[in-house]
């Protein structure tokens, strides 16, 4: 069995990802016991994929923990429990009051025990440091993600504020037509630059194979302004100039070249 060839094949990566057929998994289970080289490579792949997973970390919402706890059975109740090893296992202090002639022998024994204990101690410390590092990496990712999210939110809000407060932008309210009396949308549009934004948070839910599409009426003809997701605040529509009205129709996914007029949900005229 060529161990090197197995390592290079990519099979071990699939093994760690739990994506090998059962027979091949069983074979590697066996081989890793006999070949430390293989075993070490598997551990390295595990470390890489663990780091890959922590790079994706997302902090769950706060209520989830209790929801999960409520579904589990615990042997103990919240506060009191077996304490985790907050520090490494204790090193035993060996008190010896040996007679003088046994001193040398005793000292050697103590030294050996001491070495063993400290090796164990440092090994535990090493493990502890390793898992602390992992936890910190995860934490760092979670925080970085939160910062990114907040930044996106704040940028989006600034952009929205800029659009709304720009006096050259016109707000056109699109009102529900008889087939969707409660529907409503708002278009913010600048006739000079042609820029348009659509707030579509008050449109009813659609079937999964349908999508909203925005139209501008220019010279009596509908001009495609692009598809609009329901619930999007300040979706940027295509540019248009000289519009006299805006309307939203329901179309198949991806939109159409011409509007389906009988499925027009909202309409609003541009007032001068």
């Amino acid at each position, binding site marked *: 069995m060529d161990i090197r060839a197995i390592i290079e094949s990519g099979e071990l*990566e699939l093994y760690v990802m739990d994506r090998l057929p059962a027979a091949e998994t069983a074979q590697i289970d066996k081989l890793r016991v006999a070949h430390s080289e293989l075993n070490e490579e598997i551990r390295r*792949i595990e470390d890489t994929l663990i780091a890959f997973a922590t790079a*994706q970390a997302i902090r769950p919402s706060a209520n*989830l923990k209790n929801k999960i706890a409520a*579904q589990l059975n615990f042997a103990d109740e919240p506060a009191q429990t077996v304490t*985790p090893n907050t520090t490494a296992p204790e090193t035993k202090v060996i008190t010896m009051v040996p007679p003088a002639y046994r001193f040398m022998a005793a000292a050697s024994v103590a030294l050996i025990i001491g070495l063993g204990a400290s090796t164990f101690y440092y090994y535990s410390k090493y493990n502890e440091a390793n898992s602390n590092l992992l936890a910190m990496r995860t934490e760092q990712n979670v925080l*970085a993600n939160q910062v990114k999210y907040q930044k996106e939110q704040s940028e989006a809000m600034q952009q929205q504020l800029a659009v709304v407060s720009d006096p050259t932008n016109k707000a056109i309210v699109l009102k529900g037509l008889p087939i969707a009396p409660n529907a409503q949308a708002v278009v913010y549009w600048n006739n000079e630059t042609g820029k348009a934004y659509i707030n579509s948070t008050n449109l009813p839910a659609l079937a999964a194979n349908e999508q909203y599409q925005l139209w501008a009426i220019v010279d009596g003809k509908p001009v495609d302004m692009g598809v609009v997701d329901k619930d999007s605040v300040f979706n940027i529509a295509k540019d248009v100039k000289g519009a006299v009205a805006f309307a939203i129709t329901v179309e198949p996914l991806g939109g159409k070249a011409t509007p389906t007029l009988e499925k027009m949900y909202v309409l609003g005229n541009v007032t001068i």
Partner: protein
Amino acid sequence: MNQPATYTEEVLVAEIKGKSRKAFEYLYDNYSPALLGVIYNVLHNEEASNDALQEVFVKIWNNIHNYDPSKAKLYTWMLNIARNHAIDKLRSKAMKTDRELRNDKNFVSHINGNVSTFVDGIGLQKLIDGLDIEQRQIIDYIYFQGYTQSEVAEELNIPLGTVKSRVRLAVNKLRKHF
């Protein structure tokens, strides 16, 4: 994560087997973000991901006696439970229709920067940037969509050996980042 205590995996496993509440707290605080991240990158749906995370914890809790430390680290074992569970969910009918209709908003297109209301891993983005398109594709199929090697070979019309070697190349590239 303001818990000063640290468990080694070995102690943690023993404590979970003993159904200790404190062990759950530790497990959840330290591992749930990564588990949720992986689940979310499979499902791309916040609500379904939260549900899946709950189910995954129940599975971990109830199946801890099946965990064999000679075969995988605890972390690996849990990640595989999470990923496999998410992939099963993805393949269940409801999610599938939803997914198809989202125009295959998968990992590969996801990399090209669509904005989710749920927070995506910055770290992931950086890592993925280092992979070439073939490697991204293979990670997407196998890791995030749970294809078998032969399914990928068929889908991409490449030999089985090539599927494996691309997986290795991709993981090797990821390794260089850590």
